[in-house]
């Protein structure tokens, strides 16, 4: 057997698994989204999806984009301090603390937020107890804000982990040179460090974007009523109505949303590989 044959034989099992359990169901789902009751081609599932859930699609996109931006800011702030922070003890404490949410599943994060962010929940109790807000102005955050908070809380450490790693591997001379010339730390972060780790940040954010798009547990536990995220609608169409047509159409639409993320990712990947092989 030649080398090519051996190589093909080696990757065949992996390819088979991907084709059988990933690509085939995906194609079936896409086909069913266009499948009418009479078996013919139809767009009725999409019409219904936009009619009933158009607002939820926009809501989903808005939530995920907002969360991605906030995750970016939080991750830059934490990773920046871990790299440039002067107080060794504070850096050590932060390094130890920030990773905790990484090990907590989304469903648990949703459950924790459900009692933490409620109107008479722990957050408001603390705020009222410390005199920061009046009891009457306490409000429940269990709406879009709750979902955003849960997402940022859960995903920011992941991006931070990637980003801090990338920042740590930068050459220290650039930072030192800038500091010697009198640049404040935020300028060093913004002008020297960030441009060099832009790629890593982008990859982390794209992965978070796609992950958040697919989370069912958090919106289901925090805000399953309208407007809500598309994942809740998909589950509802299947569980309550046994309506796989509309569910598949919604899945295809959310696939289109995550394709935006994939496009970013691929563009960056092709750029960096072009850079690597001049």
């Amino acid at each position, binding site marked *: 057997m030649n080398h090519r044959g051996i190589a093909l034989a080696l990757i065949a099992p992996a390819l088979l698994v991907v084709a059988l359990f990933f690509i085939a169901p995906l194609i079936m789902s896409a086909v069913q989204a266009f499948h009418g009751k009479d078996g013919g081609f139809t767009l009725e599932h999409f019409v219904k999806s936009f*009619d*009933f*859930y158009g*607002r939820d699609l926009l809501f989903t996109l808005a939530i995920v984009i907002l969360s991605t931006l906030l995750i970016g800011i939080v991750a830059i702030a934490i990773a920046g301090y871990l790299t440039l922070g002067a107080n060794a003890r504070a850096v050590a404490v932060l390094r130890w603390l920030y990773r905790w949410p990484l090990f907590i599943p989304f469903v648990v994060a949703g459950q924790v937020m*459900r*009692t933490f962010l*409620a*109107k*008479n*929940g722990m957050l408001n109790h603390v705020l009222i107890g410390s005199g920061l807000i009046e009891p009457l102005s306490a409000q*429940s955050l*269990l709406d879009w804000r709750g979902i955003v908070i849960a997402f940022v809380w859960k995903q920011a450490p992941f991006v931070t982990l990637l980003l801090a790693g990338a920042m740590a591997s930068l050459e220290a001379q650039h930072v030192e040179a800038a500091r010697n010339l009198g640049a404040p730390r935020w300028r060093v972060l913004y002008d020297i460090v960030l441009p060099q780790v832009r790629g890593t940040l982008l990859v982390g954010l794209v992965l978070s974007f796609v992950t958040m798009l697919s989370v069912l547990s958090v919106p*289901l*536990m*925090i*805000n*399953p*009523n*309208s*407007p*809500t995220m598309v994942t*809740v*609608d998909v589950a*509802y169409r*299947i*569980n*309550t*109505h*046994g309506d796989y047509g509309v569910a598949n159409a919604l899945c295809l639409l959310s696939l289109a949303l995550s394709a935006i993320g994939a496009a970013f990712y691929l563009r960056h990947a092709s750029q960096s590989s072009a850079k690597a092989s001049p």
Partner: protein
Amino acid sequence: MKVRHLVPVALFALAASAFAQTTLNVVTAGDQNMVDYVNNYLAPKFEAANPGVKVRAVGTGPGDGGSQKIYEKLSAQQKAGSAEWDVDVAVIHQLASATMVNEKLLMPYRNDIAAGKLVSRDTAKNALGANVDGYVLPMFHSQIAFAYNPDMVKSPPKSFVELNEWVKKNPKQFGYNGVKGGMSGVGFVTGWVSAYSGLSDKLEKGPYDASSQAAIDKALGGLKEFNQYVVMTPGNAGTLDMLNRGEIAMGPVWVDMFYTWQADGRLNPKVKLELPSPGLPGQPMYYVIPAKAAHAALAKKFIELAESPEVQAEGIVKQFNWYPGIDPQFVQPKLDQASWNKLFTDISPADLSKYGRPFPLSPYFKEITEGYERVVSK
């Protein structure tokens, strides 16, 4: 002896025990408490009375979705032409029972067991307008009612019309869970439509008439306005949680969940129930036997036990706070007065028979839940 010598021995022992035992597969839709009921209460009783039989209970999830999964499983086995199906007893909702009787997935059995004569309610024959006579026995009945905190609400609204006025005077004090967060919210919505469309009899008894959609949409339009004054809660349990934390003063809940939470200390003991006019829906869960159940005879024995007045009294009423599935007159003598009274503290049997209504017929039910998304959610 080394561990690897022990492995074949252990495997053999396991295999031997599997051969010696018959496993009765009970698949139940509904919340976790349904699985708990079968596993912790019914199974030990049945296994003690039938040596060599092991009861295995599996839950398929809450709401009609849970029953839908059972339907899909049986339907797949039917289409595959299997001679024996791997579900012996199923516990399902009304909506699915109609479909399953229609598609010949179930076995008629009521006349084969003695407890079949103890049922009296219309639900034993009629499931949301479909004839299921002989195929089902109600395991229990449950009911949706308003729960309210008497410290915050001195005199609760007695009808939907009064509620509509009340929420305008007390904005954000009433909470419910929409149509995607569980059946107590769905029941509130169908109750609202019954009250405001003027179609309540037609919704429950039929015949289905597509021209009623205009009246349903109009009632839902009123609900959209009502929603501006209320809080949306995350699920059946979410409504109870918010009541307990004092974030809302009133909301629709399942009566059995309400009593169970109070008994467990998870809900403020002061909170009370109220059944408004013209009524809120309730529903039974049904015991059914699939048409080709592998252990049909044993399944009948199991249901015979589950429907006996003793089990209905001790298990269904006393431990799980459901209303009995069989006629209450057979259950009451088996129960102490205190347990019996507890079930009817806030809602009298008279109110229950007057304001406890069935869910609408399935085509109307679908029209109302979809209409909610079309008219109210958008």
